[in-house]
């Protein structure tokens, strides 16, 4: 029984760059009681699909063709007033950012009550009673008290639970969840996903879930639709999809995943980037990046075909009428030659940290006396040898970024010892730091915030050389910058451009080039790939591994992503509430976690294969 039937849905948005077509003839259906997952990287049109279903497109956006049927009722034919009856009623939605999606100045009770009154006609004590029931159902403690709370008084996970309760309040038959856990920590993500699955089962709802995370797909999906550049390219049952992804793009997504690839060498990447949606497409939209493309792909847009494993694919490879290329091609699997890890590891540690503490004072009272401390980093010790990677793993707020900054004295440590190359660095004194500035560098998380938009790439890359007085000759500086650009896989002529002309992945390469310019021995990498799509993440991880091997760099890799850790780390330190709770060789920590928190953390990560299974 199909609950939601979307056919040929197309959307167009007027923008300054011309007409953008984020959705082109998207068709799929969600059956009663099933979870259908739309999977895709950023900019593929998956969020736009949900907004089009709700008829909440941004200004300038309109549905150009298609039909959306919910329970047999055509939503696109409804008047706006009728549609308001559907929104929040039969068709409810939750969003990615629980932090901003709730009205900050209305209480939880008021916001829940609005839905109950509008869609259920409840008010007064009946509404309160129902609201309490709902909050209870989404796992919120003391629900009656929480009704009087404002959103800012709740944690991120709690806010998302309230969002879910609000969505459930109208007793929807279909729940749309747009990246509901992306903004949450792994452990919270696991809880919320579990909750959604339970609620869906107990209420018999259909669910349309949007995600970019293959792990989440594996955990919750009944069926999957893969989106690329505004089109659906593959629709499959979960089992089919995970056993044999059919579309070349889907296969690339799997191959680009770092998890479980410790010894597999380089990750597969997808060359190029998603084409802009202002393009007038002629052939297949994936052509330019496809390893299996042939002449027909650029000419004719592919139709839906059945793959051998049963799923629907929009790819010429599966066209029974065309026999030319073999459907099963092999070039998209990762390089199989395991590389030898650089053995140039010396015995003396490059960096040694002893009992490092970073405490921020809390001031209170009339005279703003220090009433206590936020112990962001509370006595951690570790060491790192040249050419090795230490992963500092933990959830948000555990102090891992503060640790990274304290190592470079970008945040002043309160106490502790930092020894770099045997030299003791005192956080309270300026001397000594300038000398190691060229040895220790940092790469940041946000590729958009870490490059000064007002400076040319050349000035960005050369900044360190200039500031540290390493190269005073203008011509030589330029030559060095050009060499480094090539080293990170960019072109020398890009030096004269501004950051905004580059994609996220390219910017992260520029950020790495900036750090490399001064010949560092250690790079602190603060979640350098977490803002990137999987395929781009693979490019950056490959680059980092190459650089480590050729230059003997040591990385302190700060991350929450266990997959990346598996791929890159030699050692792992797990941080929790400012302390290192577990520290050891990567394989030991991942396979035989000792501390409870490590176990919880590892268990919460949605994975394609369990770690235990890999061991066998």
């Amino acid at each position, binding site marked *: 029984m199909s609950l939601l039937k979307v056919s040929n849905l197309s959307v167009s948005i007027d923008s300054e760059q011309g007409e953008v077509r984020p959705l082109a003839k998207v068709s799929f259906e969600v059956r009663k009681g099933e979870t259908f997952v739309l999977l895709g990287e950023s900019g593929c049109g998956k969020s736009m699909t949900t907004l089009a279903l709700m008829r909440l497109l941004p200004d300038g956006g309109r549905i150009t063709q298609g039909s959306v049927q919910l329970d047999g009722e055509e939503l696109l034919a409804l008047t706006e007033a009728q549609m308001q009856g559907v929104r929040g009623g039969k068709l*409810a939605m939750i969003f990615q*950012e629980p932090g901003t999606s709730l009205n900050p*100045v*209305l209480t939880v009770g008021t916001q829940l009550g609005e839905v109950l009154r509008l869609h259920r006609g409840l008010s007064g004590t009946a509404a309160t009673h129902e609201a309490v029931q709902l909050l209870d159902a989404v796992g919120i403690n003391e629900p009656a008290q929480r009704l009087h709370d404002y959103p800012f008084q709740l944690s991120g996970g709690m806010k998302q639970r309230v969002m879910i309760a609000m969505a459930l309040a109208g007793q929807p038959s279909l729940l749309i969840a747009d990246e509901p856990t992306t903004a949450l920590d792994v452990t919270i993500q696991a809880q919320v996903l579990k909750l959604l699955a339970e609620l869906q089962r107990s209420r018999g709802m259909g669910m349309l879930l949007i995600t970019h995370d293959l792990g989440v797909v594996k955990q919750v999906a009944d069926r999957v639709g893969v989106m690329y550049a505004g089109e659906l390219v593959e629709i499959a049952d979960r089992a089919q999809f995970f056993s044999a992804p059919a579309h070349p793009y889907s296969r690339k997504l799997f191959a680009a995943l770092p998890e479980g690839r410790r010894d597999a060498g380089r990750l597969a990447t997808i060359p190029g980037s998603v084409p802009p949606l202002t393009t007038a497409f002629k052939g297949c939209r994936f052509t330019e990046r496809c390893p299996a493309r042939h002449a027909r792909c650029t000419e004719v847009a592919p139709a839906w075909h059945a793959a051998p494993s049963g799923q629907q694919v929009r790819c010429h490879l599966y066209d029974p009428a065309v026999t030319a290329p073999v459907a099963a091609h092999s070039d998209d699997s990762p390089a199989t030659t395991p590389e030898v890890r650089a053995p140039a590891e010396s015995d003396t540690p490059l960096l040694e940290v002893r009992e490092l503490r970073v405490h921020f004072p809390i001031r209170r009272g*009339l005279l703003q006396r220090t009433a206590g401390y936020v112990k962001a980093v509370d006595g951690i010790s570790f060491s790192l040898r040249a050419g090795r990677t230490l992963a500092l793993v933990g959830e948000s707020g555990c102090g891992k970024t503060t640790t990274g900054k304290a190592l470079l004295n970008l945040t002043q440590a309160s106490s502790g010892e930092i020894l770099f190359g045997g030299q003791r660095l005192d956080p309270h004194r300026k001397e000594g730091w300038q000398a190691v500035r060229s040895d220790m560098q940092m790469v940041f998380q946000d590729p958009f915030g870490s490059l000064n938009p007002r400076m040319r790439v050349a000035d960005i890359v050369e900044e360190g050389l200039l500031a540290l007085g390493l190269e005073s000759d203008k011509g030589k500086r330029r030559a060095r910058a050009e060499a480094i650009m090539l080293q990170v896989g960019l072109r020398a002529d890009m030096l004269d451009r501004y950051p905004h002309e580059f994609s996220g992945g390219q910017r992260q390469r520029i950020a790495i080039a900036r750090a490399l310019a001064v010949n560092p021995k250690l790079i602190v990498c603060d979640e350098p790939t977490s803002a990137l799509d999987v395929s781009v993440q693979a490019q950056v991880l490959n680059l980092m591994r190459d650089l480590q091997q050729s230059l003997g760099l040591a990385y302190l890799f700060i991350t929450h992503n266990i997959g990346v850790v598996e791929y890159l780390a030699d050692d792992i330190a797990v941080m929790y509430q400012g302390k290192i709770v577990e520290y050891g060789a990567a394989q030991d920590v991942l396979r035989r976690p000792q501390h409870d928190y490590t176990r919880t953390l590892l268990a919460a990560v949605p994975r394609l294969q369990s770690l235990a299974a890999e061991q066998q």
Partner: protein
Amino acid sequence: MTAYLIRRLLWAIPTLLGVNVLLFALFFIVNTPDDMARVHLGVKRVTPEAVERWKAERGYDKPLFVNDKASGGEKLTDTVFFNKSVRMFALDFGRSDDNRDINYEIATRAGPSLMLAMPAFILGLLAAVSTSLFLVFVRATRLDVLGVVLCVIAMSISGLFYIIGGQYFFAKVLAWVPISGYQSGWDAWRFVILPVAIGVIGSLGGSARWYRSLFLEEINRDYVRTARAKGLSETRVLFVHVLKNGMIPILTGVVVVIPSLFLGSLISESFFGIPGLGSYTIDAIQSQDFAIVRAMVFIGAALYILGLILTDLSYTLVDPRVKLK
């Protein structure tokens, strides 16, 4: 909260002291009492005796900071700085240069000032908020464009023209209200209604446009999308969700001027002959009565600082997220 308040009030003291020192420097050091006397007595052909007499009558003949001739504590208190500046902290403003009691004048003139400033403030706020809400409601239509264009034109016209034009048209041509003057008690409304209306209209363009942009900013936020996804009507989204958030910067932004309403409005009062503090100040400026100007500056600064404190307090009232520590 209490600790916060006390701290803020304590902070006000150095600020006021700064104001006081700045004023003292301007009035007594950059410009000496001798200069003042000469300006008042006419620049040319002033005998030194006349200057001395003028200064003695007004207490400007004492030393600035330390009086060596006095004894004990009076060494410090019997000085210009103490009498003219420090006493202001005790709200003792002394006598004006034409020898009238400034405190008395302030007490009698605050009433008429408030009669004009208070309604103009409240009605102006109401008018601006409702106009901007209307423009937001019809946003991206021709009505909205027209409204914004009118707002820009309205704010490009000097306030003086509103006053002159309004006075000419309603008081002189139509003779609906008296041209100027004031009566206390209930009859005051006849004198106040025109300046109030002009005050409201004169500020409408700028404020309405500013509030409109505040509301529009709110409309693009995530919680508005959530509210729409709940199936709420556009009216409810606007008047409950957006209004409540948009009013926070508006309310907290206007709180700062509330205490200063006592000072009245300079131009209006003098055009309409309302005996408030505004026209008092203007007259003092025009007759170069430095004592009154100093007093009004000090009061104005004190009221502004009070306004800043009230602004912080108002945040805690209208925004549940703000807790003062």
